[in-house]
């Protein structure tokens, strides 16, 4: 186990280094002169030259990269020259909002997908299975923004039960308890995730139901409830663990379109806005933190798999 952890940590460092070099290079290809993006196409030559010098963009990219890594190792994510705030403070203000929306959504999606998937597997090819499958396909195929707009139109404008936008406060306590504002984004995102998760769960459960140990459990007269909970659920849940691990980065990435439509400023939107303004420090930090979460998510999934299924050994 220890050797495995060390190996994974070493791999993670290599991956993160590669990601940082790649992103740094890509940004220089996409924005060869960020000064024009930042100052605008009308900026005079002197302003562009002095701005580039002020921010070190007049130096070779290798020098710029090494300087960036140096400040990163000192815990400095940089300073946004468009928003006049440190990247750390920008992240601090937004990550909880994004994490809350994504986290609640992820939790609800998994909690609902499990019984739904099992139900579909056990009642395979019945009317109920067909109804749920149809609903999942429709939701899965639907562009997310379209679902958001329909929900807003129906439940915030035509029948004004909920708010058309997310909470505008920065207080997390207020956000958590503002059910009127949070219901539509959470429900919509949950529905979208649920469509995919329930299909995975159904598929895994169908495979598991056909296993001999399920038949044996039933044959020895174990109540169906216990069969499902003790034998089917634990085994069918394994693919979901991997899926959840891969969803961890969503906690950072947030849900860009949902944030845009529901007027909910989170990290995803910060990244999008930064792309439009060539805000290097924000883009770099966001991408690197995203890479860290991908590595951590996968790692966590691997660990969880060994716990859920002792037959799997980390070597």
């Amino acid at each position: 186990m220890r050797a495995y952890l060390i190996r994974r940590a070493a791999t993670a460092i290599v991956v993160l280094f590669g990601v940082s070099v790649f992103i740094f290079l890509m940004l220089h290809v996409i924005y060869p002169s960020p000064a024009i993006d930042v100052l605008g196409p009308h900026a005079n030559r002197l302003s562009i030259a002095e701005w580039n010098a002020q921010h070190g963009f007049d130096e070779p990219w290798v020098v710029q990269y090494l300087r960036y890594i140096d400040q990163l190792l000192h815990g400095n994510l940089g300073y946004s020259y468009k928003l006049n705030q440190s990247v750390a403070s920008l992240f601090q203000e937004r990550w909880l909002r994004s994490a809350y929306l994504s986290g609640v959504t992820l939790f609800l999606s998994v909690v609902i997908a499990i019984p739904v998937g099992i139900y579909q597997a056990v009642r395979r090819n019945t009317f109920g299975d067909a109804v749920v499958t149809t609903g999942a396909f429709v939701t899965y195929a639907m562009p997310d923004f379209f679902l958001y707009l329909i929900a807003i139109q129906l439940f915030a404008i035509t029948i004004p039960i909920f708010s058309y936008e997310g909470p505008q406060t920065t207080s997390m306590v207020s956000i958590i308890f503002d059910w009127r504002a949070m219901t539509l984004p959470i429900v919509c995102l949950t529905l979208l995730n649920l469509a995919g998760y329930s299909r995975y769960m159904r598929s895994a459960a169908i495979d598991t139901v056909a296993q001999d140990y399920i038949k044996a459990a039933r044959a020895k007269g174990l109540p169906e409830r216990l069969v499902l909970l003790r034998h089917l659920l634990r085994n069918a849940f394994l693919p979901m663990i991997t899926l959840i691990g891969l969803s961890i980065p969503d906690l950072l990435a947030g849900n860009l379109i949902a944030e845009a439509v529901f007027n909910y400023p989170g990290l995803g939107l910060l990244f999008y806005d930064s792309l439009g303004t060539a805000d290097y420090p924000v883009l770099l930090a966001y991408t690197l933190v995203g890479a860290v979460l991908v590595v951590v998510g996968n790692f966590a999934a691997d660990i969880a798999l060994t716990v859920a299924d002792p037959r799997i050994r980390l070597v």
Partner: protein
Amino acid sequence: MTVTRWPRTLVACVAAATATTLGLAACSTSSSGGSVNSTTGAFGSVPAASGTPQAGTITWAESPGSAPTWILPIIPGADFTVYSTNSFNYELWRPLYWTQSGVSPTINQALSLAYLPTYSDGDKTVTVRLKTSYKWSDGQPITSKDALFFLDELRAAVGESAANFGSYTPGVGIPDQVVSASTPNATTLVLTLNKAVNPTWFTENELQLVQPMPAHAWAKASASGPILDFTNPANAKKIYDFLAKESGSTGTYATNPLWQVVDGPYRLTAFNNTTGAYTMVPNPSYGGPTSKIVPTLQAIPFTSDTAEFNAVLAHSIDIGYMPQTDVPQLARVKAAGYHVFGYPDWGFTIVNYNFADKTGDFNNIIGQLYVRQALAHLEDEEGYVKAFFHGAGGLAYGPVPAAPVSPYSPANALTNPYPFSISAAASLLKSHGWNVVPGGTSTCAKPGTGPGECGSGIPAGTKLAFNVLYINDPAIVGEQLTNWASDAKKVGITIALQSGTFDHVVAVANDPASPKTIDQWAMSSWGGFTNPAYPTTFGIFNTGGSSNGGFYTDPEADKLINASVTGSNPNAVKAEAAYLTAQQPSLFQPNPDFIVVWKDDVSGQPAAIEAMTQYYLNTELMYLTK
């Protein structure tokens, strides 16, 4: 002159797609739904002021990405937008001259801090006299020293970096042309310039940048430090560094005592630097005109146009805007209890020609006036406004658009010199030695420089085939160009359409400082420019201009542009605009309207409501009726 960048619409297609799918509003209702007039550019109308003023708060929609990130009136290029100035900074600190009257880009004397200046010594000396009716919110009078303080701090700012002032042009205007400044009395500021200027240009484009700052409260190098002599350059630098540092602390805008000393109609009481939301309360010391009961102003930020439009449909915002893609839903907005008025921006949108692109001898082809005229004839502006802008747009044939109308609008700004006519375009090409192949690619049949020949540097067999690089968002850019290219094909001009992101297009096709990609594009479209009140194209179409991305050069244009900036004729810019409209240094396109919507219970001076289409916010002239 500031660059107009097409608004970024994250989910631009969303509302339209939804409207279509849900059957919420039929596109065909757009033209009849509003009082569209493609000649004047107006979309809807503004009713006269009515109702009894009531106290309250006006909520105003902040466009996506327009949250203020700077508060000091000397705004760096990185933070400089029409929103950071007109909708935020001007609410707190007024400029010497207010250059907007309704939709008309003219000086509004009632809203100006100073009387019109006088010029002497062959237009090398400017005397500005401040009004005494304006005061700082702490009761101190606004003096000429406060205007001088701005100029000295501006000099310190650009001395550190030219990027520290978004409106800075090295060597031109303020502060570089001011060789000395004096304040003979509390209300008079005298500027001596290094050379004669065109008085109208200097007043309307340069002096309007001056925002007096409270020297008695701000001229210090630390929060608790003493007031310094800002006329000493070393002190000025220290003061600027301190003020700039404080201005960079976005989280303290509403609490920092510095920013509480204002001369504008409002004072900031709340600012959220995460979202950009802010609240301003009326400044009781404000000396300018106001409505009977000035409302509190609350800026509500939006993460997308879609989110803003939902707020309008939910009737939850007092003053908002209608995104261009949502114009077909006009009836819904009206049904939600809103007035609607749109007007095009005072500026121009262009397809830039690359006069230095040697690919296929494009530089020589586009250098021919008749080719540019033919290309202009192939543009169906009225059709584009109707089809792609849903009637919410204004026509523009040159750097001065047909709307808004200004005292400097030349005759050919109002009547298209090159109206849409495919046959006229074909005739121009044929009469200059081209073998026109409709649907194919026309070629030069008669090379040479004589009458009836293709022109200098165009060999026989040269094809009329080139590319146009354009931004992929918003969609109306591509729609117009696709239509234009389609009509061009009818006279054998093959235009290859290549779209890209704004950053890509600007990097490739608008970098006159570093023309590495000079032969990669023949034409480009990424937006345009908002005109200053005195609409000279200095910097854009003069040889070597910092924004002359197409490398246009014409001695006559240079002479006229120079006259606009340094000549004594106040109407010089009219001749400049007329000449450029005739010469077509770029393809001028129609301008989309900025459409303002406001609740029925918001009223006030119609001019103040109209001015919102030009990104000026004068809620101090408005009021709530319930």
